[in-house]
């Protein structure tokens, strides 16, 4: 038994070693490769899956419309397990083996920051359609990095704008965020905007940072309830969002929660009616009421009608990834070449028509300037059989844009 097992193990190892030296496919000359790097294993797989599907769908559409610069666009997808070192390794592989000049991710600011180092070294474009840390386009800026999603300042501002405009009667705000870089930045964003536009007499009555993956929110909820808060602002995601809402509702809190990620069906499916009346904001939502968006949803349905819940509709990240890739493709088209320096030049300051309105790539920090959308969770939805966000309020770009001088980017003075 023991020796047989040893022999089998030995054979497996030997096969493995041989397998490693199999040649990798080299792309054809008439292809443009977009390298998509996302977590496709581990607990964040569903997040990664969505981005990949959004990006892939954009690439299919581009090809269906005749390709890019007369070439076919190909998606090369790699799993980074949400680890910067692995993301960097995969990016190098894509760049050196598949000759890609465009790498992208939407999950984890640390991944984008790590990829920025690789992109700078090998001089390729590093696109993010989902990582929000301000310093990506701020203090850690490199000319190769472009961001086609909201940053934390914009995202927080959109939520505060919605609350203040729609519910000027609320006077007591409370901030609860996860105790790490993203949570802290989200809170900063809330406070900055609140200070700017707070109704008379309104104030922030409390601010709390809890550890990531907190199991019991009851102590926090009780503290919030004791403060008499009417609005709770939060950047929480994942279980920290679901449990905050569930434990809040079970203890009978009477607050309106404004959050970054509430338009995620995976969250709303679980928390169900406890989420009604809470507010989400983003750059894109499927409930946007424009003909362009209707057309986009119809096209999406042709491919993903029976897909898993996470990307059956282009909710949350999928829609963003789609438009980001389209935007980049337009920049490449405008440059007329895949030469990276020329694409950078062409993209800077460029405008693009997205489903929710006009967006622009700010030249100095490569941050997409866009209107925001914010909406409340309604009891019923035409898309899902659980409560989901309704038609959004469009918040103009000027209301949520960080002035260049405040970005911390040396190029923006």
């Amino acid at each position, binding site marked *: 038994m023991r020796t047989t097992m040893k022999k089998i193990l030995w054979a497996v190892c030997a096969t493995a070693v041989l397998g490693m030296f199999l040649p990798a496919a080299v792309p054809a000359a008439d292809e443009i490769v977009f390298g998509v790097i996302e977590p*496709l294993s581990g607990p964040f797989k569903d997040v990664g899956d969505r981005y990949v599907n959004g990006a892939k769908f954009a690439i299919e559409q581009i090809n269906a419309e005749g390709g890019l610069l007369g070439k076919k666009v190909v998606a090369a997808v790699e799993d980074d397990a949400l680890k910067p070192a692995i993301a960097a*390794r995969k990016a190098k592989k894509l760049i*050196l083996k598949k000759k890609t000049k465009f790498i992208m991710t939407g999950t984890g600011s640390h991944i984008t920051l790590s990829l920025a180092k690789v992109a700078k070294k090998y001089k390729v474009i590093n696109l993010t359609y989902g990582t929000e840390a301000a310093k990506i386009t701020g203090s850690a800026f490199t000319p190769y990095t472009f961001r086609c999603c909201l940053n934390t300042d914009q995202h927080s501002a959109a939520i505060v704008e919605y609350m203040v405009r729609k519910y000027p009667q609320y006077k007591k705000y409370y901030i609860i965020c996860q105790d790490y870089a993203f949570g802290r930045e989200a809170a900063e964003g809330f406070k900055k905007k609140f200070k700017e536009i707070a109704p008379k007499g309104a104030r922030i009555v409390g601010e709390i940072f809890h550890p990531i993956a907190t199991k019991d929110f009851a102590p926090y909820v009780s503290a919030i309830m004791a403060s008499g808060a009417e609005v709770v602002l939060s950047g929480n995601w994942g279980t920290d969002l679901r449990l905050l809402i569930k434990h809040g509702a079970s203890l009978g809190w009477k607050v309106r929660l404004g959050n970054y990620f509430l338009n995620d069906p995976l969250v709303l499916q679980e928390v169900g009616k406890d989420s009604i009346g809470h507010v989400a904001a983003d750059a894109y939502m499927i409930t946007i009421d424009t003909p362009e968006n209707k057309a986009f949803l119809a096209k999406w349905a042709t491919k993903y009608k029976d897909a898993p819940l996470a990307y059956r509709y282009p909710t949350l990240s999928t829609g963003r990834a789609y438009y980001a890739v389209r935007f980049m493709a337009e920049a490449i088209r405008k440059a007329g070449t895949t030469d990276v320096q020329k694409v950078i030049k062409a993209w800077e300051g460029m405008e693009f028509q997205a489903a929710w309105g006009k967006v622009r790539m700010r030249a100095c920090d490569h941050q997409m300037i866009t209107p925001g959308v914010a909406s409340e969770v309604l009891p019923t939805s035409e898309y899902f059989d659980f409560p989901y966000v309704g038609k959004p309020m469009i918040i103009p770009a000027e209301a949520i844009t960080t002035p260049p001088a405040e970005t911390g980017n040396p190029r923006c003075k």
Partner: protein
Amino acid sequence: MTHTRTKNVLTVLIVLAALVVLPYLLTEVQLNMAIEIAFFSLFAVSYNLLLGYGGVLSFGHAAYFGTGAYFMVFALKYVAGMPILPAVLVSGVAAGLTAAIVGFFCVRLGGSYFALLTLAFNQLIYAIALKWRSLTGGDDGIGLDKHDMYLPFVGNLDTMSTFTVYYLTVIIVLISLWLIRFFLKTPYGNTVACVKDNEERAAFIGYNVFRSKLVLFTMAGFFAGIAGALFAFFEEFVSLDSINMAMSTEVLFMAFIGGTGSFLGPVLGAAVFIYFTEWVSDITEHWEFFLGVLFVLLILYANRGIIGLIPEKIKNFWSPRSASAGER
């Protein structure tokens, strides 16, 4: 005896020559991987000081790897004109000191107690790195800005070049491995290395088990820190992933898969681990499952690791002196 020695010297020369010419034979992707294997080898060997020689299972070795990585960034970022080699040394010392402090609490205890405490301290150090955002960048991580490296007689080296990073890494790893090996062969090192086998006897004949274990723990931390510094230098970016429990697990996998019973087993383990994760993760998203199964099968049927699976004859040819610390 002379015959063996000749063969040893020859083997060493062949390996050295191979390492020198390797960059000219490999593609850049493979070269990058070779660099990763090099510093992870050192990390795994340092871990094996605890598991193989000390006979204790640590779930917190990433704490020192991460400390080294962060200090590498700090040294190059906050100390103007800091040369690279001293920066690596500083990182190792920082990690070693951390290990000494943690070790002071942990090494008194054995078995499961030790495992749990190292895990808890790993979490504590992780929490510090997470909280101290102004210094570490918290969850966003922190970039390392390279500058050129000046070497006497050689001149300025372009540290952006993968070649330079390769040679630098391999040389530091080889020197470190040699130092560890050298130490283990000194009389004092020998008593330290045997602490697992004769803990009771050792305590009986009156030498200080606590001190031996602490020395071993500190040394393991120091070299993990050096490996971490090389990691930071290669990645040009350090984040919490270098210091969290997953990294501690990976190094356990590397050391054990390679073989804890021999000095070089973990080197093999690091190579296999990196290739395995790279290769299998391309095939299936469930690669961690297969990694776990491999690990469990090795524990059940081949607890000397892959190196224990190599037929004796081949092994005897390559390393006539077999490992000093044997796992039963």
